[in-house]
């Protein structure tokens, strides 16, 4: 039923049969670590990018306003970078002295630059205080409360309606999973961070419409709150029942990297995940920086190698969390500037929905990125690019060109015309970005030796 839909052209593409730009469009993936020599270089480069992306923003204002906005924008960028440099060398006094002006020039209810600066300023303030207190030892917090989870969920719903990122990740990975499960009848999906499980009804739908019916469909949902997992399970059950799918949900309150992976206990590990030996396993992971999902990156990689699932689908933010603080900061500033541009495009500065998304999601991520140790808040070695890492440890890429790509370009052509978003297919990966910056990469992996 998918193949019969007519493909629509996304606004900026050339007309190939899949309507997806090929990789010669040269999309900036922001993966290279840029050595930070001089903040003036950074500012010039940065502001050039921002100018290019914001060509429309000041179109209607007269020239004097544009010039003024540009110069205060430059000043703001300069101050942010200076402040980050001070934090990087632990000159907290000086960093702290720059914050009042940064705060004064920024606002969560202003232009894209003013808004992104507001959250980076907040994050830097928090960072300075925690650096001063010297207490960035990692520690555990029991759970996000139900109320907190609810707020994130609500914000994600708004995020889903004002940007195509969530739908992009759902559509592309579900399509890839569907294809991998073509000849399979007993299926087990492991969702490393299931939250509300919003992805799965879409997959249920296409699986249920298959001529070859499923004998069993089980999902292990991993999360931090038992009550939230239960609620998700109930919802998924309802949906599966309405489609007559033989469905079972296994909630797992933990982090995937903390599951014991002593290789002699491999069967025990399978039991913990609830996997039966006859099942075809698919692992799925949608990345974010709202909280730590894996516990231990190292262990997670190890587990995936042992598990050898038929398919691993990963949606990653094009943002690396390794490296020095300053690198992390500059990359993140670049990244979120584009994201704030995207959600602010054509929307008035007082828009409450956009504010909610920026504050509950982006602001929280920014705070985690700028914090000591980055989003995981630990000093542990982090995997920078999961796609590449999987490629290193015995997996090979499964191309998403073809149907997943079609789904994605269809999405972009659909409702509210997602103008400004760009879709690129590169070596079988699909990248969704804003203007010329890639923000999210979807990839799929299968084990090299399929014994």
């Amino acid at each position: 039923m998918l193949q019969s839909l007519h493909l629509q052209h996304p606004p900026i593409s050339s007309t190939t049969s899949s309507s997806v730009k090929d990789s010669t469009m040269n999309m900036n993936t922001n993966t290279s670590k840029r050595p930070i020599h001089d903040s003036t270089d950074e500012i010039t480069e940065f502001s050039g990018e921002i100018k290019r992306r914001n060509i429309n923003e000041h179109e209607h204002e007269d020239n004097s306003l544009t010039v003024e906005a540009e110069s205060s924008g430059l000043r703001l960028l300069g101050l942010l970078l200076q402040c980050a440099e001070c934090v990087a060398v632990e000159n907290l006094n000086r960093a702290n002295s720059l914050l009042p002006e940064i705060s004064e020039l920024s606002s969560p209810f202003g232009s894209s630059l003013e808004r992104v600066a507001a959250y980076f300023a907040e994050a830097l303030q928090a960072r300075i205080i925690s650096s001063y207190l010297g207490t960035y030892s990692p520690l555990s917090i029991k759970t996000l409360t139900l109320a907190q989870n609810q707020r994130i969920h609500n914000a994600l719903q708004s995020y889903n309606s004002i940007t195509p990122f969530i739908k992009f990740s759902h559509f592309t990975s579900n399509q890839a999973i569907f294809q991998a499960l073509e000849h399979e009848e007993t299926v087990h999906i492991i969702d490393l961070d299931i939250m509300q499980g919003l992805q799965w009804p879409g997959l249920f739908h296409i699986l249920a419409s298959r001529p070859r019916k499923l004998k069993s469909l089980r999902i292990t949902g991993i999360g931090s709150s038992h009550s939230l997992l239960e609620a998700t399970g109930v919802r998924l059950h309802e949906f599966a029942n309405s489609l007559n799918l033989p469905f079972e949900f296994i909630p797992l309150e933990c982090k995937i990297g903390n599951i014991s992976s002593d290789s002699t206990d491999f069967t025990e590990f399978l039991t913990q995940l609830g996997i039966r030996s006859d099942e075809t396993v698919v692992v799925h992971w949608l990345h974010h920086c709202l909280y730590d999902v894996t516990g231990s990156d190292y262990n997670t990689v190890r587990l995936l190698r042992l598990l050898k699932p038929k398919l691993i689908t990963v949606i990653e933010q094009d943002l690396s969390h390794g490296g020095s603080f300053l690198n992390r900061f500059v990359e993140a500033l670049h990244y979120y500037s584009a994201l704030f541009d995207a959600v602010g495009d054509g929307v008035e500065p007082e828009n409450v929905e956009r504010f909610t998304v920026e504050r509950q999601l982006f602001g929280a991520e920014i705070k985690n990125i700028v914090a000591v140790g980055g989003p995981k808040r630990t000093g542990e070695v982090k995997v920078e690019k999961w796609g590449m890492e999987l490629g290193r440890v015995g997996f090979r890429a499964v191309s998403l060109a073809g149907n997943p790509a079609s789904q994605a370009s269809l999405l972009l052509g659909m409702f509210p015309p997602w103008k400004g978003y760009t879709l690129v297919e590169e070596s079988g990966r699909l990248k969704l970005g804003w203007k010329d910056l890639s923000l999210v990469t979807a990839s799929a992996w299968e084990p090299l030796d399929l014994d």
Partner: protein
Amino acid sequence: MTSVDSLYNNTLFIFFTQKSSMERTHLSPYTNHPQTTTKQPISHTYSDPGGGEAGPDNDKWASKLLLECAQSISYKDYGKINHLLWMLNELSSPYGDCDQKLAYYFLQALFCKATESGNRCYKSLISVADKSHCFDSARKLILKFQEVSPWTTFGHVASNGAILEAFDGENKLHIIDISNTLCTQWPTLLEALATRSDDTPSLKLTVVVTSTMARSIMKEITQRMEKFARLMGVPFEFNLINGSNKRLWQLTKEELNVQEGEAIAVNCIGALRRVEVEDRGDVIRLFSSLNPRIVTVVEEEADFTSSRFDFVKCFEECLRYYTLYFEMLEESFTPTSNERLMLERECSRGIVRVLTCDDEQNIDSGDCERREKGNQWCERLKEHFSLVGFSDDVVDDVKALLKRYRTGWSLAHDRTNSNEDSGMMLAWKDEPVVWASAWKP
């Protein structure tokens, strides 16, 4: 157990063994970071604990943590200070709900206090605000605030009413306006003068600007006021005096342009609190020496003065007052209002000034900000003046004004002086917030 309690308990052990870092006066991190005592590094990440829909779980967590931190600072319990600063740092946000905002702004002050960097911090806040404010933005801010809340218009209406009544029958009027309201009080008074049944009197308006920031933007006001007066057909003279580079009480009659035959009114809106505590008596004496027909005083109802040598007491009162103010702001403005944000940032300057700056250190920049309550001002003013009750007409005007705003506003009855009238008190959710009074020699 609330999630905040649980966070507190889970992090207690980290701070338990810390030595004092507060003895350092420079901001610099520990050279030896505390060891992680957990074998498995497990991470904690920022997530938004408050957010408007926070249930009874997290109610009023900010004031509890803030007060505890203030107390720890006064006991010099360094382990606890660090722990609470850390908690507040994790949970606060300047863009969140009231608890998160209060936590954020008061955390700044506590941090300054603990690192003894209050004076430096305040100077920097003032200079930044000074640079970025301009006439248009300041005026827009005041007008927007007046549109959504009677916080400032209450005092204007009450004072104008009292002044007009005191000036009844007079022809040569001179108002000495010591305030930072950017003259938003005067258009209605000018209108009233223009529509007086007898001959229109002449009005001389001498504005003494005390706040550092208002100075830089007052020049534009002169033209506007003159134009408006012309429109109203009121003979008008306007003078602007910079009142902050010398002590206010040192101003002379000549400088204030006081002349024979004038009926004088002294209008003092939120100005007395900006005067250094020791100088307040002298300022009132100055007013008396001008022999005014009427003196109108409007001040916000809080006491940061009698507790100024007791950090915890002062902190408690600050917290009480600013909690009310922030809640009022949140209910009066839209959720994405830049004006509300600017008013909140203004509060942060006041909070840092009152709680962390050493008064004795003779801070030239900025203002004192030590508020006193109505009954305290009464004690001072009684030495030279006697209270004039507001007439029924004025009270009616004020009540009519309050009806134009959202519910929650009322006139409170001042219970401290049960026999005497002691001015009018604006209340928000039954809490007294702004006090207005009128005095004659």
